Structure formats: structure tokens, C-alpha cells
């Protein structure tokens, strides 16, 4: 195994992705909306397709805006069907995102003709290719750092998430643990819900574009869930999430480089491996805390 600058960047991008999604994931897990990441990841397809059809470019701000808008629409429709049609939350989410995904598939295949914007590229992404897309060159004491676009995008997203969480920490904590009391005390649980949804949509879409969706879905839920097993308090939970996310990214890439050669393969998908390692860390966390039987 040879470690290159490339590998460092892959790990850095992975860590940035884990941090920015994991932070939000804590609140999603506490609010029992863990499947939202998966739903948004499928539901953004029509947004991407329409953005592509309007501009004819694969990478443009319009694609991003379209995707974020459909992500928000998913949250909105889910709540609407849940409230007005009295369909259970999980089911209404399932109805909305599968329908949107189907529309997206048809738009892409039907209208775009040949699928230049490939569905599987949106779904799997390629964290391995991120270092090749250099956005910015900095020279630091003779060493030239070629900062990938993905790292830049994810850093911005991370900073935005950190700022919003710091700003609304009290409100989110209250609305996550006890929405009724929060409403009674004059905090708008609905507003906080949509703010969280908007941030989730922006983060997931930005991260899909950079690293592919599977790692985003995994990092959104698995580290926070593991952290939730280890502690009851929100701040330690956030810190545990960050630690587990960092460990998953680093160990995941290492595993992707070292394990496949044992079976005669060159390497394997780093994004997938990061998810698998996060799963292993979750199992460790589950086993290290006293298991309890629920009746």
C-alpha cells in the first residue's frame, strides 16, 4: 500500500463530509427522522433533472438549487400528507420520495435522451475522484497544496452548519427533546423543523455532488446513533459523533486500500468502506454499552 497526497485528500473530504452531516444527524436521530437522509437522497433526482434540462450543464448552480428545492418539497409534502391525510410519518415519507424519484428517473431517461447525467453517479458518487478536481492552489512554505473543490464546498457547508447550530442550539435542543414544551414556551417547533430540513437538504445535496449519496446517508445516521448509545447528553453526543465520523473516514479509506488486496482485488470503493466501518463502530458501541431487552 502506498499512501499518496491523493489519499490524504480523500480522507480529509471524508472527514469533512462526516462532520457536516453528522452534526445535523444528531438532531434527526433525536427527532426520529433518521430516514430523512435516505428520502432526500432519492427525492432530489427530479430537481437535478429539471436543473439539467433547463441549463444543459452537468455542474451548475441551478442543479444545486433544484435539488435543494426538491429536498425541501419532500419535507413539506411528507408533513402535509402526514397531517392532512392522516398517513403515518414513515409511510408518507416513503410515498413522497419514491414518487419523486420515479418522476426524476423518467425525466432523466425520457427527456435527456441518453443519460449523460447518470442516476448511479448521483447515487454512488466517487469520493476517489474528488482530489482530481482542484479548485484552488495554495503554496505553504514551498509545499503546493491543491485544494479539491469538494473539500472547499464541504468546508463551507460545515461552517454554515456549525454557525446555525451554535445560533439555534437552545431552540433545537428543546424542540428535539420536547416539541410540545418548546411550543408552549413560545419557540416555533415548526419553524425549527423546516430550518433543520432546509439545512439537511443543502448539506446532503452539496455532499452528494462531492462524494456520492451512500456515504452521506451513512454518515448522517450511523455516527449519531452510535453516539446516542454512548451518552445521554447532547453536547457529548455531538463530540462522540465527530470522533466516530473522523474514525470512520480514516479507517474506511485505509480498509478500502488494504482489505481488497487480500482477496486479489486492487482496491474498493472508499465511500462504501467508510459506511461499512461506521457500521462496525456502531456495533462496537452497541456491544460496549449494557445491552438491554425491550419487552
Amino acid at each position: 500500500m502506498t499512501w499518496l497526497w491523493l489519499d490524504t485528500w480523500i480522507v480529509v473530504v471524508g472527514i469533512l463530509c462526516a462532520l457536516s452531516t453528522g452534526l445535523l444527524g444528531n438532531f434527526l436521530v433525536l427527532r426520529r427522522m433518521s430516514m430523512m437522509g435516505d428520502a432526500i437522497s432519492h427525492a432530489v433526482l427530479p430537481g437535478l433533472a429539471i436543473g439539467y434540462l433547463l441549463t444543459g450543464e452537468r455542474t451548475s448552480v441551478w442543479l444545486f438549487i433544484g435539488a435543494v428545492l426538491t429536498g425541501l418539497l419532500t419535507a413539506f409534502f411528507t408533513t402535509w400528507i402526514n397531517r392532512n391525510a392522516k398517513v403515518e410519518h414513515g409511510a408518507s415519507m416513503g410515498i413522497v420520495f419514491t414518487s419523486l424519484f420515479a418522476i426524476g428517473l423518467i425525466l432523466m431517461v425520457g427527456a435527456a435522451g441518453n443519460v449523460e447525467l447518470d442516476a448511479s453517479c448521483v447515487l454512488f458518487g466517487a469520493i476517489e475522484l474528488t482530489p482530481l478536481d482542484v479548485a484552488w492552489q495554495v503554496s505553504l512554505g514551498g509545499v503546493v497544496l491543491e485544494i479539491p473543490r469538494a473539500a472547499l464546498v464541504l468546508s463551507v457547508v460545515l461552517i454554515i452548519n456549525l454557525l446555525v447550530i451554535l445560533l439555534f442550539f437552545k431552540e433545537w435542543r428543546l424542540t428535539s427533546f420536547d416539541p410540545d414544551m418548546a411550543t408552549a414556551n413560545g419557540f416555533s417547533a415548526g419553524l425549527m423543523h423546516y430550518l433543520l430540513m432546509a439545512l439537511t437538504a443543502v448539506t446532503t445535496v452539496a455532499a452528494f455532488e462531492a462524494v456520492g449519496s451512500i456515504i452521506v446517508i451513512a454518515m448522517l445516521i450511523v455516527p449519531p446513533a452510535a453516539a446516542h448509545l454512548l451518552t445521554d447528553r447532547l453536547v457529548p453526543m455531538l463530540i462522540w459523533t465527530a470522533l466516530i465520523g473522523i474514525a470512520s473516514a480514516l479507517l474506511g479509506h485505509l480498509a478500502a486500500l488494504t482489505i481488497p488486496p487480500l482477496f486479489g482485488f486492487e482496491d474498493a470503493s472508499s465511500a462504501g468502506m467508510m459506511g461499512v466501518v461506521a457500521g462496525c463502530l456502531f456495533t462496537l458501541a452497541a456491544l460496549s454499552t449494557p445491552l438491554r431487552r425491550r419487552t
Partner: protein
Amino acid sequence: MESSEAIWRTVLLLDYNTRLVVLATALLGLASGLIGTFLLLRKRSLMGDTLAHATLPGLSLAFLLFVTFGGSGKSLPVLLLGALAGGGLGALGVLWIRKYTRLKDDAAMGIVLSVFFSAGVVLLSMIQKIPGASAAGLESFLYGSVASMVLTDLYVLMGAAIFATALALLCHKEFRLLCFDEHFALSQGWPVRRLDAALLGIVTLITVAGLQAVGLILMIAFLIIPAAAARFWTDRLDLLLLISALLGAVSGWLGAGLSAVLPKAPAGAVIILCATACFILSLLVGRQSGLIWRVYRQTQLKRQTTHQHLLRAIFEMTESRPESAVTQGALAARRSWTRRELCRGIRRACKRGFIEATASEEWKLTPLGIVEAIRLTRNHRLWEHYLLEYADIAPAHVDHNADTIEHVLDPGLVRRLEARIGKLYPKGHGMTPDLPPSPHQIAQSSERSSS
């Protein structure tokens, strides 16, 4: 118009080439509609999503192993067995997390989904590096392609769908108990955990069976949408199962027919959009809780409430001086109804012959109206007396409490109230011997109109 004819030929099974495909997809829809109902009632709809994603590593591993041992990797039974194993393992994972940690269902499903799918992506990335072995066969599992199915695939799909339907019908009584009262089932000695596992087992089976037709990602929609749509039509489980299975079958039928005519559009997506159309239709016009019916019933109830309030208001205002009229202003001051509401109520009551105008903006009850008003007032006061006597509510508060219930008192209940309350108040009061006196003061029309 050639295309519309082609659509009809396909949908009506006249076209030999697509007949079997359409039938198989309809059967799949029937089975998943049936089983999806149980999942929906158990609030586990997204379980199908998790299981579908969890099949990917099993699928890929089976492919890898098969290639390693010299096969082409495209043997359907082997792939399906692998998928079944992956899905089963995923189901066990969810049950394990639910049982031994404090995480909730949603987190358990999310974790299994993402970790298993990650493993699948890792394996897929390895498969793609095998020289010569194209993973193209696996692609069709992701998005579904009805067209690529050969005859044996169709037989496997139909067999699995029929088998799953039979199993679900066989265990129908047990699943019903599981869905509606898990704890009761537990206390009655039913093996709830095993039943839970059996349900997930059937879901896995049907998910794997549907992978090739509608694809991994959209299979879940088949499990959720027909069941959720059927909820708008009925509250009874037997009917729910029937309607859900029917809707599933119809969406499969139409979707497969349409996608056979439009070969460019992905089959899974077309089928799911047919199901979504069914859902939206049900959401709007469903007889039990569809939006249009709900709005209609609410308006009817509101109209009736206003009508009854109006008659009682006029009656009570003129109780001491029967046959006298009240002004619209006095009526408006009596309750907090809007001007429009009051005008409409008056117009409707006039039309039905309960009240008549004596002068402009002045109204009195007709003989018919008096009979009806006495009945309504009686219900109201009986309930007031009941509340005073049995619920210990202060006299000043009973009026409002009775206001909300008086519209739904049925004759049987009124008779029972009479039997209980009848002896509590003096008989033969005023012109109406059957009418109990009001337990609280009522503003009379003269006082209001003079002020």
C-alpha cells in the same frame, strides 16, 4: 393513433409478447399490496426500503462467489438466493437493534439500510474491476427492467408472488393481532417475535422477487403506496387488504402495460407513478377519509349545527312569550356567529319551513319549527341536567358543554337520559309539559332588543 391502440392491446392482454409480463407484474402488485398493509398498520412501511437496500450486498456477494467458482454470474436463482440472504440478515439486524439498544425503529432501519448498502457498494466496486465480468446484469436490479426478463424469470416472479400471497392469507389472523395489539398478543402467549420475523421474512421474499421488475429502489413504493391509498377507502382490515391488493394489482397491470409500449421509460418508474396516481385519486375521493368527503361531511355537520343553534336560539328567546318574533340583530348578539353564517342559516331554515319572516329582518318559528325547536331544546337541557347531576359541572358551564354534544345525541340516548333525569324537574312547565326548565338564565328577546 397507433400508439393508443398498442396501449389498449397491451393492457387488455391481447398482445402475446407482453401478456405474461403484465400478468406477473400485476401479481407482484397484488402480493405487495397485501403484505404492505400489514407493514403500514405496524408503522414499519420503510422496512421495505431497508430490506431492498440490504439485498444489494447479498446480491453482489452471490455474483462474486459465482464468478470465482467459474460461473457467468448471471444465474438468477443464485442471485436471488444471495439477495434473500442479504435481506434476511438486514431484517435480523433491525430486529436486533430494536431489541437490544434504546434506538427507535427509524434509526434501526436507517443504520441497517446505509451500512448494508455501503457494503453492497464496496462489493459492486470490486465486481466492476473483474476483467470480463460485466456487472450490467446487476444494474437492472437497481432500476428494474421488465423488458429484460426472460420466461423463467417471470415464472419465478409469479411463483414467489403467489407463495407470498398464500402465506400472508394463511397467517392473516396472527398478523392482524400483531398489528392491532402487540401486547395483548404477547399476553395471550402468541410468539410475537417469531411472528414479527415471519412478516419481515415474507416482505423480504416479495422484495427480492420484485427486484428485477421494478428495481431495488422503487420496490418499496409497491409495498407502501397501495396500502396507504386503501386506507382512504375503509377502516376494516378485511376490506383494507382486498382494496390494497386490488390497487397494487391495477398499478402493476397498468404500469407494466404502459412501459411495454414506452420502452424508453424505466419500467419501475412508470409502475410507481401508476401507483402514485392511484394514491392521489384515493386521497381525494376515498369514501372513508378522502379529502373531498371529509370536507363535505364537515360542511354538512357545520350547517346542521348552525341550523339547530338558530332554532333553539329563537325558541329560547321567545319561550315566555310564544308566537312573538325576534330581530336579526338580537339573534346576532346571542351567539358568536358571523353575519354570513347567520344569514345563511336563516335562509336555509326559511326554505325548509321552520321559520318565517314577520317583518323585514324579523323572524318567528312556524308550527313545524316550534315542534323541531322543542325537540332540540329538550335534548340540550336534558344533557345540561345530566351534567349537573352526574358530572358535577357548575350551572354556568353546562350550556357550553351541552352545545357541543346536543347535535349528536341519538334517540336511544335521549330516552335513557329521560329515564334518568325525568324525575328531577317539575312536570307541566309552561306550554310545553315535556320540556325541562333551563338550569341557567336565558337572555330573553325583549331584554336584548330593548337595550
